[in-house]
Each structure stands twice: as structure tokens, then as C-alpha cells.
């Protein structure tokens, strides 16, 4: 076996059987990070000592005959937007440089309880605002498929860590596509669970009505195992859904789409989608049909306005959420020389601590919420949000899942769109509707675009609490492709 290339479920079995120790697996990943991360820059912080100590505890548990969980002893990369007690947590921002959270996020508690080994914190666009990880205050992450290209965003660090074999599991967060688009452009798997399925306690908020924590891995089954480890009700999050978690692991093992009704969203393909993306998507549709699914075309007419509604709702919420970064109780403080008022110090601190994209979105949100503009901008966007949700509801009366390409293009070059916000926002055109409605969705790799040899993702969408459908359909497509290729697509990534 290969300690860094094997999937999480394989590693967990080997650890449980005593074929290898968690410490050996963890050290192999730390060595890999030391060897390649200077070029990839997936991690902002590596907690070697903590990871090895945690691995030793798992090995001791096993030696004592304790029963281990399905991912016990397997390493994971954690997006730097989740609070982890005693470890730096920056959300990719200078305003939180050096901040050490005094508590664990709910998801971190659950990872620890599942004996999953947290290797460190991964790079991201500042406060998760971006589609390329170029808006990190700590420099961009590089796509392991081509180091001159972006790994997607905002969770580019987590996706790149998987694709560079620095970790077999990762945690992301998805507000408008920040798990799915990075998965698509790195040939990895990522799921945005149903809104409210995974607790947000300890997640640094971007847009609270859209943010959702989710699992990332290199195959569908590993993603399902991680999903099961982090999902479920938590009373500390008032939007957490108090209902049983769908059995996503059974669905991933089932992998049968015979009789499943699949809706191809007319508005999410065609014009604006790269030719090779469209080609691989059309092939995935053919695979679903061959596997016995019934694919029909459905129309969601208001999706055309999703991007515009999202880029009003998100800035409005973030302008309010980010008001907490005022330099008074934690984080950066600038200009406090005794001569300045608290307001001046706040303004200087925020100017120095936030990057340009964060400032743009805060100002857009401030504008959209201000007197005289509220109805035309934020109010109207909320109404469009209702119409988009109704489009989904009507579509799911006809089909079990919806599909589209995850992103309109493959990974673009670092620097290409960094100062053109509207061009950057178009990356999220297919992923955003799901966040607005609170549905769940998966991205999984379906091939390389012929024109540039870069990965393409298939997006599968399901209604709220229908997360198991994603895994059933995703695992079926993955199995068919592995049959065809003889391996997962990620195996074709260039050696680093």
C-alpha cells in the first residue's frame, strides 16, 4: 500500500487491522507536506506535534482493544475558517494574524471525537471571498495539476492538499461554491451539505444564510464517511436541523441509479461554458443514461438572476458579519497611539487588516442596505431568492436530482482575473443557486478537458435533506468512470 496515495477508507482499515499505525500514516503525510507544500502552498499552518500526538493516542486506543471509528487515525486538512483551540486561525486575513482561538468549532470537536488526525489549517480566499484563493492575505495556493493555475476558491487550500496527496481528507466551507468549484478544478470530490446539516458553531461567518461546512476527499465513499462524521444537530447553532442525517455512507455503497430521475438544468450549460467542459458533461449524461437513470431536461428560469441576487445578498450579510473585526477584543489593532478616537482606530485597523476584495464586498453590502437603495437592491434580491427556490421545488417535483457542470471553465491562470471582480464572480454561476435555496450538492471529477488537459467536475444537486441522493448518483458515475479508466482521475495528476 501507499500511505499517501491510498484512500481514507483503505487507510482506516489498515490502521484498524494493525497493518500500519496512525503515527506512520501521519508522519508520511507530514513528510509529503514538507516535500511539496513550498510549491503548492495548500497549508497556512501545519500542526506536526498535535497531529503526531493525536495519532499516538489512536494507536494506543487500538492497542488497548478499543473500538475505532470508520476514519480513526486518518489525517485531514482543515480549512482555516474554522476555530481550532490552540492553533492559529486566520480565515486568510491579516486582521486575524496571530489569533489563537480559545475554543474548538463544533466540526473540530466532531473530528477529534472521530479520532481523525488534523494536520493543519489550509489556505483560502480572505474570509472565503473568492473563487481562486488569490485573495488570501498569505499568497495564493497553486493547483497541483498545473502550478501556474488557481486551485479554485475559496477552499483552494483544502482541494489542493487532496490533489497533492498531502491529505486524504479535508474540510471546506461553501457559501457560493467554495467546496464544489475547487473540487471541480482539482479532480477531487466535495459536497455542500443541506443548509443546517452541519453545525456552523465556530465557523467564522461570511454570509450566515448561505454558509455551510462540508466534506472533501478523493473519492465518493471517503467523502460520505467524512460527511457522516461531521453532520447532525448542534444546539449551539440556531439554524442546525434537528432531524436524522440521511444515510450517506449506505448511499455511496449502493451506487445504483437505475430508475433514478435526473434533471439536466437547461440554464446551466451551453453558452458561456468551455467546450471541453461541455463535452465531458455530455459524456457524464450519457453514462447516467447507460446506467439506467432517466435523464430529462428541466428549466429553472430564474437561475439567470442567481448571480446578481447572490452578489447583493452575500455582501449585505458580510458587511454586517465583518463588523465584529474592529480591533477591540482580538486581532489586529492599528493606530492606537493615544491621540485617536475609537472610530479612527477601527477604520485604520480595518483598512490595514482587510484586502481589496473584502473591502469591495463590505462597501457593496453597505450600499445595498442603505436607506434609499435597500428595496431596489437587497429587498429585490431576497424576492429573486424566493423565485429561485421555487424553481428548485418545481424541478424536484419532476426529478430526484439535478445536474450541471460544476464550473463553466477549467482552472484559469493565477493573476488572470484577480483585479476583475465581475469576471471572477462568473466562476460561481452554476454553484450559487444551491446556496440561495439551501439545497445540497456534490462535485465529482468526470474527465479532463481535451483542449487544456485540466479537470472537469459534474455537479449533482438534491433537495434539502436529500444528501444521500448525491452519494448514490455520484458513486454510480464514479464507478463507471473507474471501470473505463482503470483508476480515479486524480491518479493522472502530474507528479510534484
Amino acid at each position: 500500500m501507499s500511505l499517501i496515495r491510498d484512500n481514507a477508507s483503505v487507510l482506516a482499515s489498515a490502521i484498524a487491522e494493525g497493518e500500519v499505525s496512525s503515527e506512520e500514516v501521519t508522519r508520511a503525510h507530514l513528510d509529503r507536506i514538507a516535500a511539496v507544500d513550498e510549491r503548492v502552498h495548500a497549508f497556512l499552518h501545519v500542526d506536526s506535534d498535535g497531529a503526531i500526538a493525536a495519532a499516538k493516542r489512536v494507536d494506543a486506543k487500538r492497542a488497548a482493544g478499543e473500538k475505532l471509528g470508520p476514519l480513526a487515525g486518518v489525517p485531514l486538512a482543515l480549512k482555516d475558517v474554522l476555530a481550532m483551540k490552540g492553533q492559529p486561525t486566520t480565515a486568510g486575513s491579516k486582521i486575524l494574524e496571530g489569533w489563537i482561538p480559545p475554543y474548538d468549532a463544533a466540526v473540530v470537536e466532531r473530528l477529534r471525537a472521530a479520532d481523525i488526525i488534523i494536520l493543519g489549517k489550509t489556505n483560502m480566499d480572505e474570509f472565503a471571498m473568492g473563487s481562486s484563493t488569490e485573495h488570501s492575505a498569505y499568497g495564493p495556493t497553486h493547483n497541483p495539476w498545473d502550478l501556474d493555475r488557481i486551485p479554485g476558491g475559496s477552499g483552494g487550500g483544502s482541494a489542493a492538499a487532496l490533489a497533492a496527496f498531502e491529505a486524504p481528507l479535508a474540510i471546506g466551507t461553501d457559501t457560493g461554491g467554495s467546496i464544489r468549484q475547487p473540487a471541480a478544478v482539482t479532480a477531487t470530490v466535495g459536497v455542500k451539505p443541506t443548509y443546517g446539516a452541519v453545525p456552523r458553531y465556530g465557523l467564522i461567518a461570511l454570509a450566515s444564510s448561505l454558509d455551510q461546512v462540508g466534506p472533501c476527499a478523493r473519492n465518493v465513499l471517503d467523502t460520505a464517511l467524512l460527511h457522516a462524521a461531521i453532520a447532525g444537530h448542534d444546539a449551539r447553532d440556531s439554524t442546525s436541523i434537528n432531524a436524522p442525517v440521511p444515510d450517506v455512507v449506505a448511499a455511496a455503497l449502493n451506487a445504483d441509479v437505475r430508475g433514478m430521475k435526473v434533471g439536466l438544468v437547461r440554464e446551466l450549460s451551453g453558452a458561456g461554458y468551455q467546450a471541453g467542459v461541455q463535452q465531458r458533461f455530455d459524456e457524464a449524461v450519457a453514462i447516467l443514461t447507460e446506467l439506467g437513470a432517466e435523464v430529462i431536461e428541466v428549466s429553472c428560469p430564474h437561475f439567470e438572476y442567481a448571480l446578481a441576487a447572490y452578489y447583493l445578498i452575500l455582501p449585505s450579510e458580510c458587511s454586517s458579519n465583518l463588523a465584529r473585526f474592529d480591533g477591540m477584543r482580538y486581532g489586529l489593532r492599528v493606530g492606537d497611539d493615544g491621540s485617536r478616537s475609537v472610530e479612527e482606530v477601527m477604520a485604520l485597523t480595518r483598512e490595514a487588516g482587510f484586502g481589496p476584495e473584502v473591502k469591495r464586498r463590505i462597501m457593496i453590502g453597505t450600499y445595498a442596505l442603505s436607506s434609499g437603495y435597500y428595496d431596489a437592491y437587497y429587498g429585490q434580491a431576497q424576492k429573486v431568492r424566493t423565485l429561485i427556490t421555487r424553481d428548485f421545488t418545481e424541478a424536484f417535483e419532476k426529478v430526484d436530482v439535478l445536474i450541471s457542470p460544476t464550473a463553466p471553465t477549467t482552472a484559469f491562470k493565477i493573476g488572470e482575473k484577480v483585479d476583475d471582480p465581475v469576471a471572477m464572480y462568473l466562476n460561481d454561476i452554476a454553484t450559487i443557486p444551491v446556496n440561495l435555496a439551501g439545497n445540497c450538492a456534490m462535485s465529482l471529477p468526470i474527465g479532463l478537458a481535451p483542449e487544456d488537459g485540466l479537470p472537469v467536475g459534474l455537479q449533482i444537486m438534491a433537495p434539502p435533506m436529500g444528501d444521500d441522493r448525491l452519494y448514490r448518483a455520484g458513486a454510480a458515475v464514479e464507478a463507471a468512470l473507474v471501470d473505463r479508466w482503470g483508476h480515479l482521475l486524480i491518479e493522472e495528476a502530474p507528479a510534484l
Partner: protein
Amino acid sequence: MTSISRADVAHLARLARLAIPEDQLDHYAEQLDVILQSVARVGEVAAADVPAMSHPVPLLNVFREDIARPGLDREAAMAAAPAIEDDRFRVPRILDEE
């Protein structure tokens, strides 16, 4: 529909507590204008009688049993403070001197 001026950016920056330097106001004005023009498309949708949606799940007050339980201790809560005085967060003056 919109045209954001340099003065508008200065006003928004003041509301948002961002000390944007003078020499960057024009650049932000240009970018915010492009963004606002593209998102103004939401106005094309006829939605007068459509209810607004703030959240994907119903927002209800959630109560727990009124039982005392430990919170963060003072040392942990203050550990990341930029400035401390007498076990409290020290902040710049909040009132003018006169």
C-alpha cells in the same frame, strides 16, 4: 442605473469604518460601479407580489434549559486582546475630550 462617485466611496467607507486612502477612491469607484451595474439585473425580475426570503430554514428562537454552565475563563477570553488594563479590554477614547 448607478454611477458611483469618489464621494460615494468615501461615504460608504466612512459608514463601514474603512480608512480608504484618498488615492484609491477612484479605483474603488470604478470597480463598485461595474459590480453594481451587473447586480442591478435583479431589478429586471417582476417580483412585486413575491415574498422576500432571508433564510433557507425557518428562523425560530431556540431556547435551552436555564441551567448555569461554565463559559470561557477570563484568561482565555482576554488572551488575544490587543490591549489590556486591570483585567479589562483597553480601548481608545470613545468620546471627544471637550
